[in-house]
């Protein structure tokens, strides 16, 4: 080992030498080659400026990272950050050492988000679409192998993409590498968490794993990087400061002998089951990708956070069905935090103990080889380091969170953004909403602190709130529209601080809408709600009320927003169209012509 280190070091040096070389050897060089080389030198230099070399525990431990926004957010591996602790020292090519704080972690995907402090103009890398990456593309990895970068100048290693959409089994339920990129650029201990760039210096992945077996923990020409597309899906969630979970469909799939992927088992309380998926159905596409192997299915599943709604197409008896399924979490509420607390050994997943492996005789695909995540370059000497003041200002410990400080921040931002156009703090009186139903008929909704009254063509409905709303399912087939309306008014009046337990979930997709939206998740009156906000405008797009697990939520979808002058002269944005959905059907669509969010009537 001692012997090998200088060799790699020199190998790295020779690479730099060849970058610098052309100037002297330019005489008989084809101008096109010289130009291409100059471009490559420039893109490497640009890319290196965004790389972070992480040191922890007085430099005895560490890894790599990459800055992705000017305000200092940087990606790394969970297994690097877990070993480093909540505060890190991060060196960059400007020669400065920055303090950094943990933000959010994804232990299953082996991703961590940290924030470098002290600047708002950090050089940052651009995450591009990793589905555009092909086998044979030239790539380079930047990082801190063997913690060599004590001068904060990272090491560059060069290679090609050996494979895309690779699946690598987890250790237990953690550190699963799905849909990852495989490269032959040297990935060594200390490279963990560092960027993999394409030839133009755009970020396509975060390195974190190698196939190591009998040859010791050094590069064997097989490194794996978490794809930029998976990172993009998780980024909003990582900024929530939470400990994130991955997703499950609630169904198992397997390949049949005709190259189809079939449902081999399904949970009856899963959303997939409620959306019609059954045993023996063929999975045609998932997450927008055609599915031909069980690995491809697991690859898609692995790139989405828990609770996302993802398109699924399945086929039964020649007929195809297109649905959106809500993905459930892999772990229970407390399970993940417990797992981290006990500090799982980052050991080899035992292929023989994997679920679903039955026969002793190796199947046609044979048993899986062992893969081990890259270890932190060295073991920490001590766990508790003094947290610098600047970091302490950005850190707040709380169960279930990597750093609650960031959740509070994001929650506050989303709320402030909403309130900028829709401040209902004083509208604590009775709200009346009058209008037409899409199916002919008049309607009137009356919302107050006490409950909801609703006049519909079919008759009147009333909800008087007393205690838990878990059983408040009225009107029938609405999933609990009255309770949802009650909680909606209550939320926009009270705000997240007073409504109940409200946290920032992250960013989620909304079926039928491009891009991601901000989500606040709330618990109040014994039920869960989720409020979705349009980034930028801050408008509330949707509310979901989950009364009972195993049941579909009642969804309030808001649109046709325009300003409404209030009695107090203040203008507020209010949605004038409300669609109420439950399961696969629309319960009602309201077109309001008259909305009056009253202030309390003054007593005579």
């Amino acid at each position: 080992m001692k012997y090998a280190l200088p060799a790699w070091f020199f190998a790295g040096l020779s690479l730099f030498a060849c970058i610098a070389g052309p100037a002297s050897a330019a005489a008989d060089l084809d101008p096109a080659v010289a130009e291409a080389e100059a471009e490559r030198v420039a893109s490497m230099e640009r890319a290196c400026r965004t790389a972070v070399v992480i040191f922890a525990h007085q430099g005895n431990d560490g890894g790599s990272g990459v800055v992705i926004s000017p305000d200092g957010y940087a990606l790394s591996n969970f297994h690097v950050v877990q070993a480093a602790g909540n505060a890190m020292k991060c060196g960059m090519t400007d020669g400065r050492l920055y303090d950094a704080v943990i933000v959010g972690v994804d232990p299953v995907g082996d991703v961590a988000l940290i924030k470098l402090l002290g600047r708002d103009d950090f050089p940052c890398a651009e995450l591009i679409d990793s589905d555009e990456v092909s086998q044979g593309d030239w790539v380079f990895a930047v990082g801190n192998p063997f913690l060599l970068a004590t001068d904060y100048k990272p090491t560059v290693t060069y290679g090609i993409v050996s494979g895309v959409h690779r699946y690598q089994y987890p250790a237990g339920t953690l550190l699963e590498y799905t849909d990852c990129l495989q490269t032959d650029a040297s990935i060594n201990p200390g490279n963990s968490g560092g960027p993999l760039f394409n030839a133009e210096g755009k970020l396509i992945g975060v390195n974190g794993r190698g196939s190591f077996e009998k040859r010791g923990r050094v590069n064997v020409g097989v490194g794996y990087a978490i794809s930029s597309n998976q990172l993009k899906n998780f980024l909003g969630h990582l900024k929530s400061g939470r400990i994130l979970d991955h997703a499950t469909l609630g169904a198992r799939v397997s390949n049949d002998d005709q190259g189809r992927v079939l449902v081999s088992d399904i949970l009856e309380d899963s959303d997939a089951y409620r959306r019609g998926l059954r045993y023996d159905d063929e999975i045609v596409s998932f997450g927008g990708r055609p599915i031909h192997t069980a690995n491809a299915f697991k690859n898609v599943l692995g790139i989405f956070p828990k609770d996302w709604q993802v398109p699924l197409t399945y086929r039964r008896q020649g007929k195809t069905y297109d649905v959106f399924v809500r993905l459930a979490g892999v772990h229970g509420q407390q399970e993940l935090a417990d797992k981290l607390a006990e500090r799982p050994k980052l050991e080899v997943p035992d292929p023989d103990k994997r679920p679903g492996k039955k026969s002793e005789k190796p199947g046609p695909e044979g048993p899986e080889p062992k893969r081990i995540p890259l270890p932190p370059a060295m073991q920490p000497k001590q766990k508790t380091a003094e947290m610098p003041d600047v970091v302490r200002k950005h850190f707040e410990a709380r169960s279930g969170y990597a750093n609650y400080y960031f959740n509070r921040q994001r929650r506050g931002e989303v709320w402030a953004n909403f309130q900028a156009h829709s401040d209902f703090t004083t509208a604590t009186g009775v709200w009346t909403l009058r209008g037409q139903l899409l199916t002919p008929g008049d309607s009137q909704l009356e919302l107050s602190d006490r409950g909801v009254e609703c006049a519909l063509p079919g008759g009147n409905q009333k909800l008087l709130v007393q205690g838990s709303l878990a059983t408040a399912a009225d009107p029938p087939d609405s999933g609990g529209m009255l309770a949802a309306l009650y909680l909606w008014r209550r939320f926009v009046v009270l705000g997240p601080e007073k409504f109940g337990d409200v946290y920032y979930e992250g960013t989620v997709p909304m079926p039928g809408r491009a891009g991601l939206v901000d989500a606040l998740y709330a618990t109040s009156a014994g039920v869960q709600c989720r409020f979705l906000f349009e980034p930028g405008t801050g408008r509330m797009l949707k509310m979901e009320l989950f009364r009972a697990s195993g049941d579909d939520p009642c969804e309030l979808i808001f649109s046709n927003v325009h300003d409404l002058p209030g009695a107090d002269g203040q203008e507020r944005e209010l949605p004038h169209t409300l669609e109420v959905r439950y399961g696969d059907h629309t319960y009602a669509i309201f077109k309001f012509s008259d909305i009056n969010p009253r202030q309390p009537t003054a007593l005579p």
Partner: protein
Amino acid sequence: MTKSSLLLICLALATACAPAAAAGRAKAGDSSLGQTVAQVEPKIVKIYGAGGYRGLEAYQSGFLISGEGHILTVWSYVLDTDYITATLNDGSRYDAKLLAADPRLELAVLKIEARDLPHFDLHTAADGPAGSRVLAFSNLFGVATGDEPASVQHGVISVRTRLDARRGAYETPYKGPIYVLDAMTNNPGAAGGALTDVRGRLLGMLGKELRSSVSNTWLNYALPIEEMTKTVDSILAGKYVKRSADEREIKPQHAWSAQRLGLVLVPDVLERTPPYIDEVRAGSAAEAAGLRPDDLVIFIGDRLVASCKAVTSELERTDRADPVKLTVSRENDLVEITLPAEAREVKSEK
């Protein structure tokens, strides 16, 4: 790591740099390298067979050498089973038959029942001088399954040399020329993969894992195709074809047997018991010829004998009037031993 190998790494990296820059500007997927990869991948085969315990992977790599489903791969324990599966690049799976193997070259030819497959032509295989850039295609670590393409790595031919240049350093019966590569190509499961130039022309076959007993380092190497063409041609011509069990061949009246040779094989307890010699009887022809206990019989004549049963069956078909040529594996060397024909005393009396 020695000084010279260090130099090689530096040299190799420097060589790799210049052309890389040109490729760097191309868009993802349509780089010339990407085109080469797309053209080679359909010829690469994932092979699954015996193993799967004690660090012995039950998979290796191979590549198609005919449109009718001939696959060239390395000869190894993975093929030591009646159930070999070959998965093609499109994910289709076939039962593969072991046509024949040559333990001297450590190669084997498999056959699947298929037609019009994309394949390499061994006779147009290229020659790779030292310093030329190469691509290695293999299913190393079994990373790819089904229709997932095999892994591709890039590197440079460091030198073309003979494997026995460092006598005794590597435990392998193959002593011939090899390409030494600067890339980490020879990992578990990579053996049998294809080495091509950057235009996708076949140069060699990735060899089995080899660790130097002197330096404890792993060798990354490939066997040049030209070393193998003659043998593969004779296999394809049927010369090496294993005798099938139901072949209606008239057995000679006076045939050889292990006992007659003075050999005792290990007890035949498995479906395919490796034919190790347990004992050589004193004063026997076997002893006189120099056979020893613990020798593993690999060939009788030109026929591969993979089990005790195959040895018995082959000897039953060999007339005592003919000499018997045995090829045995002894301490990682292949040793050829010929036992002379038996004089037929009865005949001579009459």
